């Protein structure tokens, strides 16, 4: 997947759990939780949606590495297509 496809997948995953968020108004470099009203259950659902779309599962210890849209895309770019 290209970076653009990954970004689209991340934003679509966010829209799946928090559709009230306006993707155009999001700062991709700022933590998602500072901009969208999501709780920890939503964050886990978001990661499930990301895994469905990219095949990449984010383990608990890496949650801090996917806290912004940009960081999430970069994290996925390094792992997408890797054998499970």
């Amino acid at each position, binding site marked *: 997947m290209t970076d653009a496809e990954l970004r689209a997948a991340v934003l679509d995953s966010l*829209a*799946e*759990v*928090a*559709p*009230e968020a306006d993707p155009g108004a999001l700062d991709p470099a700022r933590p998602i*939780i500072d901009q969208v*009203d*999501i*709780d*920890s*259950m*939503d964050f*886990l*659902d978001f990661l499930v949606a990301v895994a469905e779309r990219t095949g990449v599962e984010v383990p*608990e*210890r890496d*949650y*801090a590495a996917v806290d912004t849209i940009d960081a999430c895309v970069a994290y996925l770019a390094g792992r997408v297509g890797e054998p499970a």
Partner: protein
Amino acid sequence: MTSTFAWPAIPKAPRPGGAEPNMPDYERECETFTWEQAERELDGLPGRAGLNIAHEAVTRHVRAGHGGDCALRWLPRAGAPEELTYEELERRSNRFANVLERLGVARGERVFCFTGRIPALYAAALGTLKHGCVFSPLFSAFGPEPARQRLEIGDARVLVTTPALYERKIAQLRGSLPDLRHVLLAGAGEGGAAGTESLERLLGEASDDYEIPATDPEEPALLHFTSGTTGMPKGAVHVHQAVVAHHATGRLALDLHAGDVFWCTADPGWVTGTSYGILSPLTNRVTSVVDAAEFDAERWYSTLEEQQVNVWYTAPTAVRMLMRAGAELASGFDLGRLRFIASVGEPLNPEAVVWAEDALGLPIHDNWWQTETGGIMISNYACMEIRPGSMGKPLPGVRAGILARDDDGDLLLRDGEPEEVGPGVEGELALRPGWPSMFRAYLGEEERYRRCFAGGWYRTGDLARRDEDGYFWFVGRGDDVIKSAGHLIGPFEVESVLMVHPDVVEAGVIGKPDPVAGSRIKAFVVLREGAEPDNALRREILALARTRLGPAVAPKEIEFVADLPRTRSGKIMRRLLKARELELPEGDTSTLETA
């Protein structure tokens, strides 16, 4: 579960070098304990001027020479911790009380706080109590609709909030809240939106000195909202006398010793975060750790280590998230200062109790109480064998019973009186009124309050049983109220908002079992004819619900269905929706409309 203990009991041995528990012998304490005696451990206002929670929490410690002790250790999301001594907390809460005085806020009027876990919240809570006003906290993850309902029911006069929360959730409501006279913004500097005042500026102009006026122990002090199956949220009113229970339960159930470092992870927006996140630790003169950040497994372990936490009070959802993160993570931290761990919010599964013994070196002590009880009522204690999965035994001074009820949830009466059932039999958990932190009213709803009592018992609405040795075991809720991540949510509140969407004809909301959160909120939605049940519409309805309700109350899942099961009288059968969701037998459907 057929056997009373499927899991081996966890015995208690004296810990070498550990502090002696405040209560070394449960049975003995039950024989000797009286609430009158518990009250004598507090000071009362000077000159026999009554009892005020804030005096017991802060002022008396300063006057006794402990002003330099650390009261709050606040951990911002990033950056160095900030310490507030008892003396500083005394000054800041005095200033807040003076601000209320200057604004002309009268005794008994309601002061709401709608903030995250920031120091200003703690000073505002105590200052409100000092001034004889009623403190009411709101959870910051509430959307505008739950906030509006509570501010309206509580007839809020003053609201303390932050610029971000004000802009996102409150500004749009001002027109519908004419009696909300003052909105004080914390962290707005000198500025702030129109119609608001800067809390810092007002505090800066206020005096450090404030004399707490005479306070009748039965004067209202705290207003906590909770949810029922039907109708709007209920405002449970607690009085200053409740401090006797805040103090005694902290001592007996949480084993707080003066000088301990204590961390209650609950948000003050819920009753646990007020009774045990603000008040009980202060009356017991411990150092309270307050973390502004949300859950993160690694951060939590390092907080326990770095802050040298002795007593930790947390919730099953958090424990289960730590279990997911694995015991290896825990093993990298030194948790040697921990002496006692407790949990509340929903029943703690036995696996978690046992997991903690391995991973953290200590078992977890589950306890049970609710908004209406104001403090811990049934608990596992430092001195008492734990039966994993049990909520423990009633607090000394509290009498609990299990009352027989029929399938409709009504109490079975014998000679007109409710009847207690014997060991092993399920029934409704009930308490004999008389403990100091019992709620005194549902604000403005006398009839709803009266219905909570029957034949000299307070009915908790929870189903439970007691074993032969007096341990209580949670069975389930007796109504349709949902417990999600430890928070009580009324299905009706959620359904009402879903039906605001023009394509939604009706909605039924249940708690769907979830391995981490206990339950997650799921909505079954019937669409108007012609509406397309696709993902775009699902997202649209979800967006509406989340915008109005906030993430703590909005559904996590929406499923479109052709119709909802109803009783003959037209009520939605949520129990049946849940049985279908879980593919369980649907039970007696004789009261159902033929589908």
